[in-house]
């Protein structure tokens, strides 16, 4: 075990030279087509269903009437210009907006048919089923191991914690880089590694939905590709909803895309869903003029 923090191998991993250690690098990294279109399948069950959802902060109308069915084991992307409310909509799913006192959700958001805002629903339990990865990597200022173990521990996990930590890190494609320094601080990891740690932390509690709020916006392009690859892997088992500023990213990873826009009314900005459909369609033949303007770069 090395005493010093191994920054050299860290750099290697982030610059994509990890091929020397990993004999089968995924070919998708280099040969990814511009729009994969994903694999949307209408047979997939709707797992999270937005029906006429409005979000308010006090008397400020932040998001207007969003209706989006999110299907199981697909990646759904929310795109749109800044201030269009896509993050607000995302955070209303696992009730992170509850932390903002004045926030209020109208309409219904159901999870497996259960209204997430019904009285008697415990937001703490909701967040154990619907995990979240944030825009800026936010590991706890603790060891790598403790970062992963915290969620399962408070959820009352009784099995072998070492195995769970290993499995979570393996699934987040981080194990090989950190297996020799699990007890060291998570803050010494690079930005990309920290974000994969946060993904490992999110999946350690075995949620079935993962919310990702611009998970790669603070990362360099190589680390971004690694996160995207990871999302592709995780799609086999999880439903992923990703908010992104980066249209290319939405085009590369998602199966379906919701495009949000923003109306400015007397200086107040209200977000609105413009179009929601399969990613391949929204990027090749958008139905709305606004969508086309945005994805061709004429707006936003």
């Amino acid at each position, binding site marked *: 075990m090395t005493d010093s923090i191994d920054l050299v191998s860290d750099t290697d991993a982030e610059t994509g030279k990890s091929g020397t250690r990993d004999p089968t690098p995924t070919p998708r990294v280099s040969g990814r087509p511009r729009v994969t279109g994903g694999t949307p399948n209408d047979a997939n069950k709707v797992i999270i269903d937005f029906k006429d959802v409005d979000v308010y902060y006090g008397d400020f109308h932040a998001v207007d009437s969003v209706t989006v069915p999110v299907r199981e084991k697909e990646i759904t992307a929310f795109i749109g210009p800044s201030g269009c409310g896509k993050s607000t909509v995302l955070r209303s799913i*696992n009730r*992170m907006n509850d*932390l903002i*006192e004045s926030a209020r959700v109208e309409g219904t958001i159901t999870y497996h048919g259960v209204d997430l805002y019904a009285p008697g629903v415990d937001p*703490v*339990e909701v*967040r*154990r089923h619907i*995990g*979240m*990865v*944030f825009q*800026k990597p*936010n*590991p*706890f*200022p*603790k060891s790598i191991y403790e970062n992963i173990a*915290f*969620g399962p521990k*408070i*959820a009352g996990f009784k099995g072998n914690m070492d195995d769970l930590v290993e499995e979570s890190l393996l699934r987040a494609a981080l194990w090989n880089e950190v297996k020799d320094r699990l007890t060291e*601080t998570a*803050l*010494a990891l690079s930005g990309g590694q920290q974000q994969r740690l*946060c993904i490992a*932390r*999110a999946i*350690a*509690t075995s949620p079935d939905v993962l919310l990702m709020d611009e998970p790669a916006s603070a990362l360099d392009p190589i680390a971004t590709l690694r996160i995207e690859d990871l999302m592709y892997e995780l799609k086999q088992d999880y439903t992923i909803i990703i908010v992104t500023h980066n249209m290319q990213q939405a085009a590369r990873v998602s199966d379906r895309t919701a495009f949000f826009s923003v109306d400015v009314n007397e200086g107040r900005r209200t977000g609105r869903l413009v179009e929601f459909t399969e990613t391949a369609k929204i990027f090749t033949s958008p139905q709305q003029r606004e969508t086309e303007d945005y994805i061709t770069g004429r707006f936003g």
Partner: protein
Amino acid sequence: MAMGLKNRSEATTEDVAKAIRRSKVHWQSTLFSVVLLLLLLTTLVILFVLLADIIVKAYPTFQERGLSFVTSGLSLNPETAGVFTGIVGSLVIALIVVLLAFPIGMSTAIYLEEYAAASRFNRFLDTTVRNLAGVPSIVYGLLGLAMFVPLVRMMGLGGSTDGKNVIAAGITMSALVLPIVIITSSEAIRAVPNSIREAGFGVGATKWEVIRSHVMPVALPGILTGTVLTLARAIGETAPLLVIGVATGYFAPPGDATILDQLTGAYTALPVVVFSWTRQTQGEFAETLAPAAIVVLLGVLFILNGAAIWLRNRTEKKW
């Protein structure tokens, strides 16, 4: 001069070198740093003169008496008078402050920062706490006399002083530093990045788990630093103690006094010892003994601050 380069595309290396060369003294900047340095030196000189004066005056006492000055109690005879009684009184007051003001203050800070909604009432509470921190200490002495002395009496701890004892003094000092403990703890808690709280909630932690496992460990070093500095304030204050009946003259506990008798009996504290010695008619008390007592008081404060720093470094994670 920056304007010297009219056409950048045709500029030669020489032109550029000339344009970016240091050609004038940025006198405002230099003047500013000189002024800052002078003001810093003023502070240091005042501090140094003060310390040097006291140490020079105190030196003969320590030379003649050695440690016996620290280990012997109050006396009317300057040859044998020492500060031991004062040290004990100050330490007991400090202990009561640690046991009372710290837990109450930290809990209040956690409530105000993590639980209290942004209501008008809570903003009022916050402002009130801040105003309390600025209330003159003598007012706390009056509060102590009106409330804590009777309270101690009611608790059956009045003893021979009828409540005007070190317990009432400790409670009064706790009330005095409580607002400062709340403010410094609040600031340390507020400095914890929200992203850490979100991370905790994001994996399904309850509010209590987030505060216990993530907010408090990060805030603790800051809280400790702030609160232990308030301890120095509690030990240095004189005025409130004078109001609530600290002994300013000579006293000695009876030979067969139990610990309870001593706690509930007459008491004094280091700054009070300094105060009363400067008012003694015998010259030695004011001229040599008081400075020596000041040196001891400063020593106790330095030790406490050192302990605070040690404690903070211990709780602060190495990462």
